[in-house]
């Protein structure tokens, strides 16, 4: 470990840069890779090809396009709330990323003597985006927006519960709320006495992992849970009245949040920034808490994040949309009872073994 003593403000600036770097650029990567290219492949077309090699600069061109669009405030809109809504949505995204560790020393908060309620904090701030979406839907004073905002609120609170309850299984197994603690619990874990792979919780918490992924899909309002923005029914739901850069900010918020949720899922279920122990053992002199993992960790996290977001967009472009009542029924009558049983069974197994 390299011991560099930094003043608090220097450390804070570095952490803000790190937060910026793990929210916005990966959002661009996933949008290009999955939303442009993978979807084009699935639909037997090329997708963007003109801007840059293989259309890789398409996103830059898009931002240029959005920046030139006129900013429209509808006459009846509540101007202050209308303008504040994108801020609230993005604040939620940036606060979510705070707790995700990217290496043994690369945790923004949740250090040794710091805030150790990591995953609980993440679950708490993830619900702030509901407020932003409701604000956008209400302040637009448009029927489409209002319906979209109300649908979003109903959907997000319904799927918040399975999300939270699925995490409880992981917390029971790891015995800690701290994200670093969950990573090291998975690294040091064993499955029936075999520790070569550690114990990534997507194996032992498979039910919880599935519930978590489904709930994340619904929390992000991606198809098949995209009723709040159902384009054939509600134009674009709560974003209908927004134009230009404000619309783009909602868009960025959506995809950045998808990435951050993938980071969180990777930490909870796929072992976080650590690699399986047998790989660490193959390289002599490498320990899981050695400084090298501050460089390897982020790369491992990005790979795991890309895997999980791939699943999100794969599902998004494969399944047809739910109906509103089916969505609520699925959350309350299927996911929540299953996750309650999951908690009881996980607790029983934890106490018995």
């Amino acid at each position: 470990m390299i011991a560099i003593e930094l003043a608090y403000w220097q450390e804070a600036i570095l952490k803000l840069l790190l937060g910026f770097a793990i929210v916005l650029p990966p959002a661009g990567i996933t949008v290009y890779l999955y939303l442009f290219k993978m979807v084009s492949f699935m639909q037997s077309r090329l997708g963007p090809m003109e801007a840059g090699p293989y259309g890789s600069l398409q996103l830059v061109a898009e931002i240029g396009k959005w920046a030139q669009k006129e900013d429209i405030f509808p006459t009846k809109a509540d101007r202050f709330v209308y303008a504040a809504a994108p801020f609230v949505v993005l604040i939620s995204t940036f606060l979510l990323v705070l707790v995700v560790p990217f290496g043994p020393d690369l945790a923004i908060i949740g250090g040794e003597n710091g805030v150790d309620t990591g995953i609980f904090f993440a679950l708490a701030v993830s619900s702030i985006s509901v407020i932003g979406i409701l604000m956008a839907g209400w302040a637009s004073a448009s029927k489409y927006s209002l319906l979209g905002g109300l649908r979003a609120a109903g959907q997000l609170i319904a799927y918040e519960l399975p999300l939270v309850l699925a995490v409880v299984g992981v917390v029971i197994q790891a015995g800690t709320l701290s994200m670093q603690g969950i990573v090291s619990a998975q690294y040091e874990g064993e499955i029936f006495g075999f520790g070569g792979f550690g114990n990534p919780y997507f194996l032992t918490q498979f039910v919880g992992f599935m519930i978590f992924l489904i709930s994340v899909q619904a929390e992000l309002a991606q198809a098949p849970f995209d009723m709040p923005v159902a384009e054939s029914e509600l134009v674009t739901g709560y974003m209908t009245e927004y134009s230009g850069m404000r619309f783009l900010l909602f868009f960025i918020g959506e995809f950045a949040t998808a990435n951050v949720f993938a980071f969180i899922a990777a930490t909870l279920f796929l072992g976080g920034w650590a690699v399986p122990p047998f790989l660490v053992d193959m390289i002599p002199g490498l320990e899981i808490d050695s400084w090298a993992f501050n460089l390897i960790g982020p790369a491992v996290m990005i790979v795991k994040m890309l895997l999980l977001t791939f699943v999100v967009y794969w599902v998004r472009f494969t399944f047809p949309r739910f109906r509103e009542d089916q969505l609520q029924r699925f959350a309350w009558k299927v996911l929540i009872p299953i996750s309650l049983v999951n908690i009881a069974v996980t607790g029983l197994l934890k106490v018995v073994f």
Partner: protein
Amino acid sequence: MSEFLREYLLVLLFGLLAIGVVGAFLGLASLLRPDRPTAGKVTNYESGVDPVGDGWSQSQIRYYIFALLFVMFDVEAVFIFPWATRLEEYGYFGLVEMVIFIFILALGLAYAWRKGVLRWSS
């Protein structure tokens, strides 16, 4: 200031970072975009026809009762988390206690289910 409070200060700083990023995007756009509002442009969008009535029109929210259920289960989750971190120390005693707790809450869900609250009804 303790490290604990310093970390919460970072939470505040990240909130400000988000506001700064959004502000920077909007500021950049305000330098580039035109601003020529006309009466037709700033009317609320209703598929191209003139809007009918008020934007905040009455609509039936069928699932408002879910919000009450949500509060019930969210409070339950807050109780479960501290228990989950300490389950190993509590052993069977803690397990039985929590299963009873979850069972009582599940009874509430079952009651709502039986009463037809979870059904889409007109």
